[in-house]
């Protein structure tokens, strides 16, 4: 395994290098950037849902904390954007760690309920604290600045995001093959059995939850700076569901499935704009179709069909 050439990662790098030269205009470059950001969020979420087998229906709440930290802290308190980004991660990390212990005593639907509740509470708070967050209308986000230069151009953003994505894919692959990753997969298989062989189930569940929440917060900050604006919709229940859908459509417990799911479902709403008014119906029908006919997700189904694993 270790000796094998990492073909998947090389393909990802190749595609990322090629994209800026093949996209016809800035609209598609923007789409590519959002795909890459979503891909990273989904990678983090897939570690939690696919590998560790724990549901989160409130992940957009963590994205929201990151995004609003990057909006509120520089605007109202004059923090440097990087410091604000770090601040968002710290707040998210503390919040996730606080709720994780009681939450992960729960299983299945109770866990779904608790994470859903947490996400909705975060969303309602962002919506209501209008003096800080601009309320339902949202607020502008100051530009990111690195080494004294402010970043505006889509091209620059693309290379930043692409580099981060390569690192994220590589890190996820390594994490999964590490003892930590094996422990996660073990507790997905059977919590009792993994406990018996000495895996501290609660500790692992809490760590992966905090890790994926902090990662989401980081991505929330990056999205906020890139788009230059945040609104509470970014942190709402539907966005949480979209992210979980990306995980499941691409393939649970599959690194490349995360990428495929994120790319497809980021592109889908664009493709559906031609349905004028029927978007919701078509989107819902496509979700159902995917889950009914490909319940294991695209990448694992294809991998099983052509007889090779990842």
């Amino acid at each position, binding site marked *: 395994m270790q000796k094998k050439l990492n073909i998947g990662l090389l393909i990802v790098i190749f595609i990322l290098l090629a994209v800026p030269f093949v996209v016809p205009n800035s609209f598609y470059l923007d789409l590519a950037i959002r795909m890459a950001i979503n891909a990273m969020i989904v990678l983090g979420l897939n570690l939690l*849902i696919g590998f560790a087998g724990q*549901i989160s*229906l409130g992940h957009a709440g963590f994205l929201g904390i990151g995004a609003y930290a990057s909006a509120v802290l520089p605007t109202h308190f004059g923090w440097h954007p990087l410091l604000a980004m770090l601040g968002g991660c710290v707040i998210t990390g503390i919040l996730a760690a606080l*709720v994780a212990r*009681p*939450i992960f*005593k*729960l299983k*299945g*639907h*109770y866990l*779904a*309920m*608790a994470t*859903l*509740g*947490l996400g*909705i*509470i975060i969303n*309602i*708070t962002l919506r*209501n604290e209008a003096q800080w967050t601009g309320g339902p209308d949202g607020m502008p986000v100051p530009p990111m600045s690195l080494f004294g230069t402010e970043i505006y151009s889509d091209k620059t953003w693309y290379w930043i995001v692409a580099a981060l994505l390569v690192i994220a894919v590589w890190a996820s692959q390594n994490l999964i093959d590490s003892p930590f990753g094996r422990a996660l997969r073990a507790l997905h298989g*059977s919590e*009792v*059995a993994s406990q018996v062989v000495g895996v501290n189930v609660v500790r692992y569940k809490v760590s992966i939850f905090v890790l994926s929440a902090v990662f989401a917060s980081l991505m929330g900050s990056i999205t906020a700076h890139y788009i230059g604006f945040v609104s509470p919709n970014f942190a709402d*229940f539907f966005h949480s*569901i979209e992210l*979980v*859908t990306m*995980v*499941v459509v691409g393939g*649970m417990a599959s690194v490349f499935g995360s990428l495929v799911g994120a790319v497809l479902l980021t592109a889908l709403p664009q493709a559906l704009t031609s349905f004028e*008014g*029927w*978007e*919701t*119906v*078509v*989107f*819902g*029908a*496509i*979700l*159902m179709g995917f*889950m*009914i006919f490909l*319940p294991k997700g695209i990448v694992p189904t294809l991998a099983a069909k052509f007889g090779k694993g990842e």
Partner: protein
Amino acid sequence: MLAEFLQFLFSGLTVGATYALAALGFTLIYNASNVINFAQGEFIMLGGMLSVFFTMAGLPMPVALALAILVPAIVGVIVEKLAIEPVKGAETVTLIIITIGASLVIRGLIQVWLGKGTFALPAFSGEEPIQILGATLMPQSLWVFGVTAVVVAVLWYFFNRTLSGKAMLATSFNRLAAELVGINTSWVLFMSFAMSAALGALGGILIAPITMTSYDVGIMLGLKGFVAAVVGGLGNGLGAVIGGLLVGILEAMGAGYISSAYKDAIPFVLILFILFFMPRGLFGGKSTDRV
């Protein structure tokens, strides 16, 4: 003081009854199939929207209301046949996404058909408020209380005294054992979707004259119904009713005494607290896992 308290209590009980009906719907489907039906809220919406549509189309009120219960029940059955039955035994998260997909389709169709407007259904028996100790009670609230009480009584009778009800209960305890004694478990699944869609729609109809209705009211109502079902302990019918009323009352009290802006957050704060200390809800039994 007392008047204010009573006022909050009345409005809490009224909306709580809707949550209770929705929570019963969650419970029925959960018991029959272990599925949390995230489309439950859309049945509440369908009940309200269809009753408005059928009365505006000129049908007499009783016919309109009956149709507004029947049509969602049929929709529930279609969802079950097309989307739930083919994926029996899939992972929890897959099933959640399927039901969310179904809810998007239902909501989207209503939005295309009836538009994004907000509608009100006329109250069943006048708008003349009743004065009780300084608080006012709308006659529609009495309808909500009365019908909910009757429904709960009928359900109790159905599950405890009739063969069909007992068959559904048996399936919820142990599907395989139920099949072995000759219970048609796919009929049970069919019935539970029809019944829970009808219950949701009924709740939506009863509350529509008070809270108004539009194509997107189902999301929050459904999620709060889910909260109510979990508060009582998933799968527990009595728990669902008590959970619904409790969520409704606390929401109304919180909105009245603490902050009306955070009204919608109150059920979710409540459920987090309950789950932190009682991981299986208020009335959920202890469970042991078989390894």
